[in-house]
Each structure stands twice: as structure tokens, then as C-alpha cells.
């Protein structure tokens, strides 16, 4: 099938340094402001108050987090918010040694999916782990939210600084 492959011109860093190829650049100026919506709006309000909440579908009974105003399985509206614990279990985690643009970092960030106590099994949220030796992190580890001081909370997911081992 070699005859069905069209050659392409592979550009190397040197080609740019030596000015052998021309190019144009552009910096987009596109800013966004997202409305939190009904379910997540309430979620953020509760975070500001130092609480985690989910929603319960009256039809299938699932307690969901992040909360939604509809059940994507039953396709019915949900209006029941239920308080959840601010503790949970590490479902999975990573030790991340690079920034998004591939610059190395010494102390790893520890993103995790954390199953929240009080929600249905498997219902997790993404957050970070802290106050823990990276080598000691395990799937199944019990963790608790570390909150910002009340006066610094702003109604955002970052009102929880991270989760630490219980």
C-alpha cells in the first residue's frame, strides 16, 4: 500500500529558527462567563456554607453528585436535594508530574475521583488530595474534605482546598 501514501514535509525546530518557513500567529481573545444553573448553582451555594449536597431521583432512587435537576436515566425532573458527608473513598488517583503544557513539577499534584459518602455507590467527584505522602496514596483510602476558612469561601469547587486522609 506504499503507493497510497502521500509524502508530507516534516518541519523541524531548526526550520523555524533559521527562518526557512513562514507562519502567522494569533492570540484569541475569547472570554466566557458560565451560568452555574439550577442544580450546580445550589451545589455552589452549599459549598460556600461548607456542605456537600447531591440530588435524589424519586424514580430510580439514585443519589447523585454532582447534582442535576434531571435524571439522565429516568429522564424525569429532580427537586430533592440531599445532604452528603464531606468524607469519601478514593476510587482512583494519579500522581501528576507535569503541568498541562508539559512543564515538569517536582512535587506531584494528586488528582483523584472521590466517592462521596451518602451518595449512591460509584458516585464520585474529581478533586485533589493533600497532606499525604504521594507514595502512601491507595485506592480505597478514606479521605475528608479540607475546607477554606468560611470568610474566604466564594461558592466554588475550590472552597474545598483538597481531601486529606481520615
Amino acid at each position, binding site marked *: 500500500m506504499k503507493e497510497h501514501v502521500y509524502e*508530507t514535509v516534516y518541519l523541524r525546530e531548526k526550520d523555524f529558527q533559521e527562518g526557512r518557513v513562514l507562519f502567522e500567529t494569533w492570540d484569541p481573545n475569547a472570554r466566557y462567563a458560565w451560568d452555574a444553573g439550577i442544580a450546580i448553582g445550589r451545589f455552589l451555594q452549599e459549598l460556600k456554607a461548607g456542605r456537600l449536597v447531591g440530588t435524589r431521583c424519586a424514580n430510580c432512587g439514585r443519589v447523585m453528585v454532582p447534582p442535576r435537576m434531571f435524571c439522565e436515566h429516568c429522564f424525569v425532573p429532580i427537586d430533592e436535594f440531599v445532604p452528603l458527608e464531606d468524607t469519601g473513598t478514593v476510587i482512583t488517583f494519579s500522581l501528576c508530574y507535569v503541568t498541562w503544557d508539559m512543564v515538569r513539577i517536582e512535587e506531584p499534584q494528586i488528582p483523584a475521583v472521590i466517592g462521596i459518602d451518602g451518595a449512591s455507590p*460509584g458516585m464520585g467527584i474529581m478533586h485533589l488530595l493533600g497532606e499525604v505522602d504521594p507514595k502512601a496514596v491507595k485506592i480505597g483510602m478514606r479521605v475528608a474534605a479540607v475546607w477554606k476558612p468560611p470568610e474566604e469561601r466564594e461558592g466554588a469547587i475550590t472552597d474545598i482546598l483538597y481531601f486529606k486522609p481520615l
Partner: protein
Amino acid sequence: MGRNRVAIVGAGMTKFVRRAQETAKELAWKAASKALESCELTLDDIDAVVVDTAPDAFDGIHMNAEYLSDGAGGWGKPVIRGYVGGGTGVFAAIQGWYHVASGLFDTVLVVCEEKMSSCQPHPQGAFLTIFDHTTERPLKPNLLWIFALEMNAYMSRYGLSKKDIALVAVKNKRNAADHPAALLGDPDITVEDILNTEVLAWPVQRGDVSPISDGAVALVMCAEHVARRVTDKPVWVEGVGWSLDTAYWTNRDLSYPTYVEEAARMAYKMAGITEPRKQIHIAEPYDPFDYKELHHLEGLLLFDKGKAPEATALGITQRDGDLPVCPSGGLLGVGNPIAAAGLMKVAEIFWQLRGEAGARQVPGQPKRGVAQAWGDLMQVGTVIVLGI
């Protein structure tokens, strides 16, 4: 439901490179012209065009597929663009199939193009926008997190080691050494080479990941009466399937791709496949990360859950094994220009079933193969079954 029989009769592609001098339009033209040339058709023979490319944000061009449509042969024709993230390449062939199967068109040109290099300083800048804007992005996520979290969930569920998984990268990069369009083929690479690459987001290391790439791939698909006139070796589309899981990815079981199983079941039913392990001879599952090949083989029902690594270690998935997997070299070896990479997999099955894969040809004259891709918010499975 009446459907017309659909064949693939031609395929072409560009060489995949880290950064191509060619623009998106030029890459699309190169692949499209090679596909037409391969079956001795011209653009006049084409009734409609499918042009697929992944996020507009990579190129920084809104309506990017429409922008590059001239290069894809779209001028003055019915053109459609599809986009299901990483699942796009296989989905493009599915779109080509239903254009013809519906009876609306006889001959369709399917073109997938990707130029990831335009996005500076790193295409992750565009990728990051897949995270939820309110509940996730304020945590300043890195796209690798989502794969690392999934890979760790998979490894932990089945007690797998990094070595079990690195064997996939070794196999695919070695296979790619025989692919004339490959970016990262290496006949001598070893499992130690992969295990010694830098850790990015544990358990993901550099060697577990496919490279950022530029490239394009094209197919010609047509109705049976056209196919019989054009070639004596048509490759038939026997089944197609696709399925989307929830976008609430932190609520999913990350150790198993249910969306792939659902897509595979749809495609197998259409193809009349009741025992995929006996009836499928060759597979090109989506492998942007080495663990994903294993994940997807299980989702495609070709191995039991958690058993694809053992099959890999036993050599079953080698090119001369009982079920050759990614004989092309896959995304890990040939490269990963997103939409184009998926369509490359369909093209590989086409060439393998025709016995035209050259040094990559699997032994035993395979009669049926499956190609699969994965994407959107890591939640879509797209599957196509081809046969002769």
C-alpha cells in the same frame, strides 16, 4: 429496514508527522487524491463528501471542516461534517456507510484530517475545555489526569503491572516500523525502553502515550453496483455501531468501557456475528494510550474483562498471533492525528482484508476485521466491522 450494501473500494493517506508544512486543506487534498487514485475514480464520480476533523480549537478555525472542504473535494457537493472527538475517524466511515446504505448516494468520499501542531504552546490548551467549566476547570486540571485515573482504575481492578501494559506499546511501535506513513515505528524497541520513559501522570509515562501528529486519511465508499464496476476486491461494511456513555465521567466505572461494548453489540448484531472471538480475525482497537488497546479489546468482547493483558503477553495479539491487534502499528506507532488516526484503522482493515498490507500483512488471509475508536468526553465508542 431496507439498507443497500456498502463497500469500501479505495483508501489513501498522508505520511503522519509531528508538524507538517502542509496546511489542513493541503493534507486533506493529499489524502483525498490518493484515495481516488487508488480506485481510479475522479471527483466527478463522487456524489457526496464526508469531511471530519476533531475540535475546531486545534486549528483555531471555526467551522474547520468547512474551511478545509475544498481540499477534501467538497466543492459544489453535498458535504457533511461529523465530530465525536477521538471517535471521529471510525464515525466518519459510519457516516459514509449511511449516506450510501440509505440509497441517497452511490459513491461517497470520506476524508479525515487533523493538524494538532497549530495549537501553541500545546494542544492540551484546546483539549482542557472538555472538563466541566464549573465543577472541574477551577481545579486547573491537566488532560492527562483523566487517562491516568482511568488507567489506574483498570490496573487496580485486575492487579496489572506497568509491564503488562507496556507490552502493547512495544508491539505497536514495532508493528509501525513496517508502515510507510508511520511517525514512531521502531523495530528494536523493548519493554524496558517504555518503562524507562519519564513519568507524566503516574501511571501514565511518556512511552504509554501516542504522539501529537499532523496527517489525513481518506476512503471511497460506494453502493454494490458501483463497487462491482470499480474493483474485483470490494471490502464490505458488515456492521456499524456507536454508543455514548454519560458525560458525568466521575460517576462511571472507569475500569470498563461499557460504551464500546454497546457499540460493538450493535455492530455485531448487524453483521450477524454471534461469536466475535471466532468470527473476527483481525482488530484495530483505538490505542491513544497502551492501556486503551486492552480496555477496548475487552469492550469489543474479544477477551474477558481483565484478560487482554494476559493474551498480549502470550503473543495472541501479535501480527502472527491468533488475533492480530493493531497490525498497522496503531496510534502508538503510526501516530495520532485524532480524526485521521481513527480512519487510518479502517483503512488498515481494508488493506489487510485485500491482502495489500505489504510487510504488515497478517498471515492466514483474514476474512473479517473490526476497527474501533473512542472519544468525545472519553465516553463514545464507534465500531465498524468489515468483511470480504
